[in-house]
């Protein structure tokens, strides 16, 4: 495919997909080791009531009110999970399950009760996103990357998602030692002077930011898959946490690129006319990578097995 076609149509969705995958997979490494992997699932679900509230308050399908609404409900859900787990004395997984299903169901009811029929706002959008629609109309080819006029027309989702991915990478780099210590041994970390509870909350908030930033562009399904699949596959490639995070970044990138290409061209190669959902295909590729790592990864063996 030539640059004239590739740059306006495919470059931006590809990059957004890669950034969204990275932003989710990086914190996912710690979430899985902390047995909190379900939090990605939880946050992605509570995004729905958040965008509905954002819409109801402003009456517009605009990005910022919806993202703020989603961010708000994500934070509320993180706190609720903590409250349910602490005071209900149930394990964190059960607390997450209770909170996110209730809030998602509340979002569905809210959506039906409110008059949103006139606007494009539905559950499907929140789940699959619409990666393919994020095209760069002002671009004519590779040279547009150096053209300020064309760059001004870049879909705002790209810089936003890139910034979030960069921020999360920076967060993990700077707090690498406390994150590793408190993930492995919280009691010891607290005695070493690490504020373990605020750190845990910060990790949750960073994950929520990743999920909220990603849902708009690529939908919840990628977020859920990327929080879990690349880190889980990466764990089976190495016994070092630093290298695991490197592998997870590679797997996330490969899933995004391969998934996007397969969704766009796979059906054509099979003689079918229409492309399939890129978000769905990216999640499927991530799942296949996890399956391959589970079968062929060099560090699959676990203690006691």
């Amino acid at each position, binding site marked *: 495919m030539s640059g004239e076609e590739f740059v306006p149509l495919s470059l931006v969705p590809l990059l957004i997909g890669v950034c969204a995958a990275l932003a989710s997979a990086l914190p996912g490494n710690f979430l899985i*080791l902390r047995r909190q992997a379900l939090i990605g699932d939880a946050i992605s679900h509570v995004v729905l009531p958040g965008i509905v509230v954002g819409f109801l308050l402003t009456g517009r399908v605009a990005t910022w009110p919806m993202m703020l609404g989603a961010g708000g409900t994500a934070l509320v859900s993180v706190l609720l999970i903590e409250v349910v787990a602490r005071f209900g*004395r149930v394990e964190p997984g059960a607390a997450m399950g209770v909170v996110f299903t209730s809030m998602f169901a509340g979002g569905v009811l809210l959506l039906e009760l409110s008059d949103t029929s006139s606007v494009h706002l539905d559950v499907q959008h929140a789940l699959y996103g619409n990666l393919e629609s994020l095209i760069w109309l002002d671009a004519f080819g590779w040279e547009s990357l150096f053209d300020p006029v064309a760059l001004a027309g870049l879909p705002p989702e790209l810089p936003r998602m890139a910034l979030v991915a960069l921020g999360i990478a920076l967060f993990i780099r*700077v*707090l*690498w*030692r*406390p994150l*590793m*210590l408190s*993930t*492995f*041994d919280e*009691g*010891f970390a*607290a*005695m*070493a*002077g*690490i504020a373990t509870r605020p750190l845990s909350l910060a990790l949750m908030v960073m994950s929520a930011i990743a999920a909220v930033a990603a849902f708009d562009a690529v939908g919840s399904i990628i977020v859920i898959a990327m929080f879990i699949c690349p880190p889980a596959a990466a*764990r089976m490639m*190495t*016994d*070092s*946490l630093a*290298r*695991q995070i490197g592998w997870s970044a590679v797997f996330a990138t490969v899933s995004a690129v391969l998934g996007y290409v397969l969704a766009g061209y796979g059906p054509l190669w099979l003689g079918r006319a229409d492309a399939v959902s890129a978000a769905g295909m990216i999640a499927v590729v991530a799942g296949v990578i996890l399956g391959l790592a589970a079968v062929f990864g060099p*560090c699959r063996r*676990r*203690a006691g097995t």
Partner: protein
Amino acid sequence: MLMRTEPEDVSASPFAVRGLTVGYGGDPVVQGVDLTVPDGAMLAIIGPNGAGKSTLLKASLGLVPRMAGTATVFGQPVARQRARIAYVPQRASVDWDFPARAIDVVMMGLYRDLGLLRPVRARHLDRARDCLARVGMEDFASRQIGQLSGGQQQRVFLARALAQDAEVYLLDEPFAGVDAATEAAIIAVLKLLRDQGRTVVCVHHDLSTVRDYFTHVFLMNRTAVAQGPVAEAFTQETLQRAYGGRLAFAAG
């Protein structure tokens, strides 16, 4: 035997607890406990299962919430003296599948020196390797921790505490489920620490080794039962009171 009267002044004690009460909602699991560890002592916290031994340790350190009471290190609140304490949690309290090698775990003991971003230098690695050697684990530095035996894992935990170079060592069941070689290695290291003037406190469950390993005991069963030098406080009578009818053998 009556409770020994403790000196009011706790400033000389490397680890002292006053009026500690801990409950998880229901009845307190630890109630009104006073404990004063003498400087340079090697003290065992002893009591039946469910007596609140680990809880006493964790609540003193602020790792689980307490309902009442204080814990001090040389007279200062524990929260301000953490750098002088090395804490060894129960081995079962962490996930050993964690992607780390033995040397990585020992390096965690250097967190106070390294901070967030200070680079790891050769001297840091040397110190970590030296600590592994002191527990006889130098050949396992690059082994993933999940592939170590239970005893080897416990020794790695002890090496991490050694790397902290603390004055007070608090260990939660360091001999639980370890092989004889590990037990011998650990007790040798702990006795060496005591010989250097450090203070060692262990939650301990094996009554038969108390006389060989420790200088002082603290017997408890939710409340404090007795404390003092082993010869005075570790008697048939105090054991009966701590264990009640559950004591299967006499301790001599």
